[in-house]
């Protein structure tokens, strides 16, 4: 199937084809090599401009006071020192702020200070008078005028200095120790973060976002070019005359897009790094920003590089999934815009402070890369987490590409008169009523639904507990239902809403009751093999379970029984049945159900449960027994959590931490016996 030589040749061809396309090369080279330096030079120019405009700033302050007034003296003094420092070469940069001049405007010239301020002939107006035996000054300025605000600030600084000076003089005059009274305690703050960490935390917010966007831009054009572009240029039909499989074709295109993504990301990093280094050198010459040991960033940058490679595989796979179904460049662009928005939106996650890279976060696409890069730059290293992020990205990419090569129907894409396998993008009025959604539609909607559950669902669960869990179930139900209704499919047929005899319900119940103990033993065994991963219901729901067993029963048992069954044993199974043999359809559905639970330990038990449920739906031709079975399965867990004592009295094995071999064998035997009877009853039942 996967002939390496063929794929290598195809990749070579794609590479030649893409690199000879000016648009791609420009996107890849111009942005990092020309645009970044340009932005940087522009920013420097702007900064210089602002600095120079501040430098020559002259603040005109009018003071309505006697000539010998203490404040006036102070202000004049301040103006003098300011003028002296400003004349020293290099003094402005050394202070890290702009210098200024103060001109004391004769207050006699100011007849109405309010008008003068508004006309900006003066920047601030100070009037002093004697009140309650001491001087009272009022400072007038306009908050809306920048210079006026600065002038007022300078004036207030002068007051602070003056008050400090007078306080010290009076304490000394009273014969007291100035230091003892004014500084009764000493304190100082010290930043223990290394200068590299501080720099890293600044970069960590911006860098992931920039990298993700540049990667997206870098992969977008080759993805469109190799898929929709190939179709538009009419070469797809040519390549289909060759002895090449769909998978070889898709994989070679994927490799091309991913490699180009990596190259463009590397160029981006090099360019950004070069500019950062240059900027640092300049800043170091002019100011004291602390010294950095850039070599400390080397491991972080290496890990970031790996992360970017993994991400470029992920993003290439995702963009290709989108563009492969487009028939033209324009259509592909239309499809890719929403994807871009989503990726950018998630990319902002780097800007959110205090967001930790948890085990769950490490599985979230896009977000995991952002957080990993952010963590690496502040030297938070957790090798396990790095591995999870890298592996999950590569795994998503591989799964997406394998799925794509499965559902990519070159014939439907090429000869468009053909019944479109993606009806979602067709005009609704063109769709025929009835039937079951197409496999391609279902894959697309399932992917969207699972992403929604991952992002929105987990947020809902963290925020609203049980209610959020219910919300997640609603997503599972409503999003696919929207597809069925939009594409005008037969709801009854799609979901298997057909009646069945009592035998189906009885057999199903017996089957699930037998499977439950087998599955719990499997789960606890696997939990011991892989400690730490959440295996059983208690650990998963421990945070959100309420007091009411009835509510939990509704949310944890009834809602999933209906919603998950309608999605998996309804929509997915029935759609797959139209394309694959029944055994393959059942296995794919069951495996998907296992994956959906997002846990290594749960995969086998939930996969087995999925198999049993699919089998019953196939045998009875109805989804109702499966809903009952799913309800029973979850209800058993809820009952064990809420009534451990009662359950313990009857079946001690279910509540014990560990159980003996004989207990286990007994349980297994009983389970298999019940499963067998259930299977027998089901065999007898007619469709």
């Amino acid at each position, binding site marked *: 199937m996967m002939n390496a*030589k*063929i794929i290598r*040749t*195809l990749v*070579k*061809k794609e590479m*030649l*084809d893409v690199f*000879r*396309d000016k648009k791609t090369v420009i996107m890849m080279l111009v942005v990092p090599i020309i645009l970044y330096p340009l932005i940087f030079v522009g920013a420097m120019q702007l900064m210089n401009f602002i600095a120079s405009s501040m430098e020559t700033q002259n603040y005109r302050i009018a003071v309505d006071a006697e000539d010998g007034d203490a404040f006036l003296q102070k202000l004049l003094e301040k103006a003098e020192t300011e003028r002296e420092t400003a004349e020293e070469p290099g003094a402005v940069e050394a202070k890290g702020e702009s210098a200024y001049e103060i001109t004391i405007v004769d207050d006699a010239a100011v007849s109405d200070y309010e008008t003068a301020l508004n006309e900006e002939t003066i920047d601030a107006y100070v009037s002093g008078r004697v009140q309650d035996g001491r001087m009272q000054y009022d400072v007038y300025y306009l908050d809306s005028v920048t210079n006026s605000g600065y002038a007022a600030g300078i004036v207030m600084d002068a007051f602070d200095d003056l008050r400090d000076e007078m306080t010290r003089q009076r304490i000394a005059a009273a014969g007291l120790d100035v230091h003892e009274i004014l500084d009764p305690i000493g304190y100082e703050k010290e930043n223990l973060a290394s200068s590299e960490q501080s720099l890293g935390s600044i970069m960590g917010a911006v860098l992931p976002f920039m990298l993700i966007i540049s990667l997206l831009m870098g992969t977008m054009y080759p993805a469109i070019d190799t898929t929709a572009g190939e179709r538009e*240029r*009419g*070469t797809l*039909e*040519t390549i*289909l*005359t*060759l*002895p*090449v*499989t769909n998978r070889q074709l898709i994989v070679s295109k994927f490799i091309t897009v991913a490699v180009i993504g990596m190259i463009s990301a590397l160029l981006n990093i090099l360019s950004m790094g070069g500019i950062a280094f240059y900027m640092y050198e300049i800043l170091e010459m002019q100011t004291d920003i602390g010294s950095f040991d850039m070599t400390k960033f080397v491991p972080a940058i290496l890990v970031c590089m790996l992360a970017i490679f993994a991400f470029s595989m992920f993003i290439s796979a995702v963009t290709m999934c989108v563009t492969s179904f487009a028939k033209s460049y324009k259509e592909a662009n239309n499809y890719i815009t929403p994807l871009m928005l989503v990726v950018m939106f998630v990319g902002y996650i780097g800007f959110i402070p205090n967001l930790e890279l948890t085990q769950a976060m490490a599985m979230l696409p896009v977000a995991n890369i952002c957080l990993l890069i952010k963590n690496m730059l502040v030297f938070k290293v957790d090798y396990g987490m790095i591995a999870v992020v890298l592996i999950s990205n590569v795994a998503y990419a591989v799964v997406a590409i394998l799925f794509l090569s499965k559902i990519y129907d070159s*014939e439907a894409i*090429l*000869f468009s*008169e*053909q*019944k479109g396998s993606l009806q979602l993008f067709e005009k609704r*009025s*063109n*769709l*025929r*009523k009835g039937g079951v959604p197409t496999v391609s539609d279902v894959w697309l909607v399932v992917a969207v639904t699972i992403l929604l559950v991952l992002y929105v669902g987990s947020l809902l669960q963290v925020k609203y507990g049980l209610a959020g869990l219910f919300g997640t179930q609603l997503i599972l139900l409503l999003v696919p239902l929207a597809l069925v209704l939009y594409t005008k499919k037969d709801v009854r047929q799609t979901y298997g809403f057909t009646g069945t005899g009592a035998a189906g319900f009885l057999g199903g119940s017996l089957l699930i009751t037998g499977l439950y103990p087998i599955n719990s033993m499997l789960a606890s065994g696997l939990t011991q093999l892989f400690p730490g991963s959440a295996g059983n219901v208690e650990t998963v729901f421990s945070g959100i379970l309420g007091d009411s067993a009835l509510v939990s029963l509704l949310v944890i048992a009834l809602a999933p029984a209906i919603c998950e069954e309608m999605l998996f044993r309804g929509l997915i199974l029935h759609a797959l049945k139209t394309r694959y043999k029944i055994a393959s359809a059942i296995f794919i559905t069951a495996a998907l159900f296992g994956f959906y639970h997002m846990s290594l330990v749960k995969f086998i038990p939930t996969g087995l449960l999925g198999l049993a449920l699919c089998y019953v739906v196939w045998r009875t031709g109805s989804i109702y027994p499966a809903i009952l079975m799913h309800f029973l399965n979850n209800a058993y867990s809820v009952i064990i959590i809420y009534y451990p004592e009662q359950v313990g009295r009857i079946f001690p094995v279910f509540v014990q931490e560990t159980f003996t071999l004989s207990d286990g064998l007994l349980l297994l035997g009983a389970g298999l016996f019940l499963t067998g009877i259930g299977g027998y009853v089901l065999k007898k039942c007619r469709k």
Partner: protein
Amino acid sequence: MEENDRMEVIILMKGNHNMIMADHLVKTFIKNEKKNRKSEIKAVDDISLTVREGEIVGILGPNGAGKTTLLRMMSKLMRPTDGQVSIRIGAEEITDEIEIKRYIGYLSNNTKLYGRLSTRELLQMLGTIYGIREKTVEERIAQISQVLSMDAFLDNRIEKLSTGQTQRASIARCLVHDPQVYIFDEPTLGLDIISSAAIIDFMKRERERGKTVLYSTHYMEEAEYLCDRIVMIHHGRIISEGTPGELRSKTGQNSLRDIFSGLILSADGSKEGLFGNGELQDDIVSAGSGAAGGMSRQTAKREGMYDER
């Protein structure tokens, strides 16, 4: 003189050995109609066809008769709704999609070439994909380039080539793996005299080498001149097949043009009349000028082309 040569070649090369077989092929399309209607159209409706080694078989039929769909299914670009295609190589009968493609050179107006590659690069890539040794590929490229006189532009990017040069590059593409069967879908459509003559010569030459050619055309004279056997299809079904001579004696008509229009008329039934089916109108006019009593300008132009040759 030429007729005699041809006979000799056929006797020499045609070992009556079946090369490519179509077995009860059916292709159903769902067609969008106005409003919510969709209808199923059988583009190819139960066609069985066998082409022998060293034989040129022409598929004739009006537009929409199912020629392209049939050829796409036979070259494994399209999956049949029903039925099977197989190729016989030696004693072996091959039905695997990918394997069959190895023995077929397929050319249509939709098989465009990669504009950003040169012809040489394209041929090298194809050679590797067909699993031919690098040295053999180079030798074959040199040979093909000489035969099709492509040396001058072999290393130019295909997007820079003229129409005639591109057409030659397309033929080179079909040649690189030296296939047993050529399937050409209207290869001479819209070409000037020199280019179409080159293609016709090419098909004749390949037949002489014992290769099998299955091709579709609109041009009656071309078919009559070139084909060993003619298969006429209409509405996705074979309405008649045989050598030009057999067709003549079967229908009592002398020119292929008259045979064709007569067959189509009888297939459509008398009540529809000559212009009853709007879709076919133009084709019937161009295909059967005798019956229609006149000739469209387009037809006249096509005819002229053949007269000149």
